[in-house]
């Protein structure tokens, strides 16, 4: 088997429950290297739970998650080494400078300060933030903080980038800038991307789409395939149709049980 045949991320019959509430139900999907995959779902669909399981914040009791072939359960460390993560919450130290934040992150991945600093400057230059390197994070705008978080996630040169609602709370320009940047990373550097969002217009024409609703995968594939399979005109219509049909099924099921 050649290296390219191994998916960047492979999720296989993954379920997770918080007490009685089933957050994820038999989720199966895969992302190829250098693929841009949008995980589309409303709030509460299970996106953050999925991210928490992939990043080993909690343990998956059932199913498998593999990052470039490394099961996160059995081999968490090689799996984590391939991962760059941008969490939904802001996770920078506000009182530390941009560069200090990045050097700290580098240290967490074993990068000596000098090397981390060089890479940080590279990433910041690419994001147009290098002149802010010495500023405290507190002074940055929301969009700039997000870009710093992306720079941080890329510092240890991961091959799979996870972003959990990265554009939440940002204005249109910042949003577009971040979307463009991540698209470039995908195309030019062969980075695989899993982009979780509830904003349908963040699906790019070339994206793979996974529609997650109430913990279940309703559809997945290239954008146009998903639209065609749902018998819809565009991705927005496809998403509404799929989620509505799913709610109807649930409602019918409950009515039958009653």
């Amino acid at each position, binding site marked *: *088997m050649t*290296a390219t045949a*191994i*998916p960047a991320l*492979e999720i*296989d019959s993954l379920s997770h429950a*918080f*007490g009685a*509430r089933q957050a994820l139900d038999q989720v*199966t999907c*895969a992302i190829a290297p250098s693929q841009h995959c949008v995980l589309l779902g409303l*709030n*509460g*669909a*299970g*996106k*953050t*739970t999925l991210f*928490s399981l992939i*990043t*080993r*914040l*909690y*343990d998956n009791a059932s199913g*498998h998650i*593999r990052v*470039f*072939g*490394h099961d996160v*359960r059995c*081999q*968490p*460390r*090689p*799996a*984590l*080494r*391939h*991962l760059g*993560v941008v*969490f*939904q*919450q*802001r*996770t*920078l*130290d506000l*009182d*530390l400078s941009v560069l*200090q934040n990045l*050097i*700290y*992150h580098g*240290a*967490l*991945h*074993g990068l*000596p*300060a000098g090397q981390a600093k060089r890479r940080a400057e590279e990433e910041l230059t690419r994001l147009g933030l290098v002149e802010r390197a010495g500023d405290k994070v507190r002074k940055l705008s929301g969009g700039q903080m997000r870009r710093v978080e992306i720079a941080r996630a890329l510092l240890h040169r991961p*091959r799979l980038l996870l972003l959990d609602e990265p554009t939440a709370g940002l204005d249109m320009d910042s949003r577009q800038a971040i979307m463009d940047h991540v698209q470039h990373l995908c195309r030019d550097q062969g980075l695989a991307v899993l982009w979780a969002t509830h904003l349908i217009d963040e699906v790019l024409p070339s994206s793979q789409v996974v529609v997650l609703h109430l913990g279940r995968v309703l559809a997945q594939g290239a954008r146009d395939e998903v639209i065609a399979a749902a018998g819809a005109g565009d991705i927005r219509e496809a998403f509404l149709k799929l989620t509505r049909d799913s709610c109807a099924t649930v409602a019918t099921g409950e009515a039958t049980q009653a």
Partner: protein
Amino acid sequence: MSAPTAAIDAPSPPRPAAYLVCLRGIVWREGLRFLHQRERFVAALVRPLVWLFIFAAGFRSVLGVSIAPPYETYVLYEVYIAPGLVAMVQLFNGMQSSLSMVYDREMGSMRTLLISPFPRWFLLTAKLLAGVAVSLLQVYVFFAIAWFWDVRPPPLGYFAVLPALIISGMMLGALGMLLSSAIKQLENFAGIMNFVIFPMFFASSALYPLWRLAETSPLLHDICAFNPFTYAVELIRFALYGQVNWTALGVVAACTAVFLGAAIRAYDPAKGLIARRGGPGGPGRG
């Protein structure tokens, strides 16, 4: 979906040097954060100094402390309680680190720590050592001020006490870490004050020698003798006079191991409290 037959090789595994880089990074960040919180530093110093300047001065005449090891002469009450106050600095620091871990968890920066590819026991231990380093800074500044207040242990004591401070700081930090895994919200810190810090401090040998307690209340004496904080205080007290209190060392080392082991387990995704509860940020976030 079939399992792939081979996994793509990860970049080379962390070498010992990389562990050092990681440890240094964690300590460095904790230090920077501490320097940015000047109020915290001042509060950490004012607390024991108030005890030393006011409480000890007031009680000096009431409480006579007779000659008992490690002291070779009668000592002033200030001198007696100094090691207890040092341990108190570390106790507060340990709990404050635990507070910052709850905060980190709520703010998500605990997440960035835990997605590091280094083993989790190492990350948590490094975090603990970072807290100890900060407490050492506070303790030595306290010693410096106390010197002017006639609390003057032998000069060599200042060096001899260092290993004792590291291990007692580890014990109290590990306790804080264990508590942090069990606390759901920041607001519960007041509860820690009431139910952990105060009982631990007062029911110990920090303010009064155990033999004196035995005369007045055998029960209280027994409680104090069960309190690990008592042993941290005694370890520091003896070390400050260039002696090793082996019992105290044994108890503190054992408690450190137990607390740290439990804390690492609590932060283990497979077994810990976090998994059971639904993890940072509260259960079941979409």
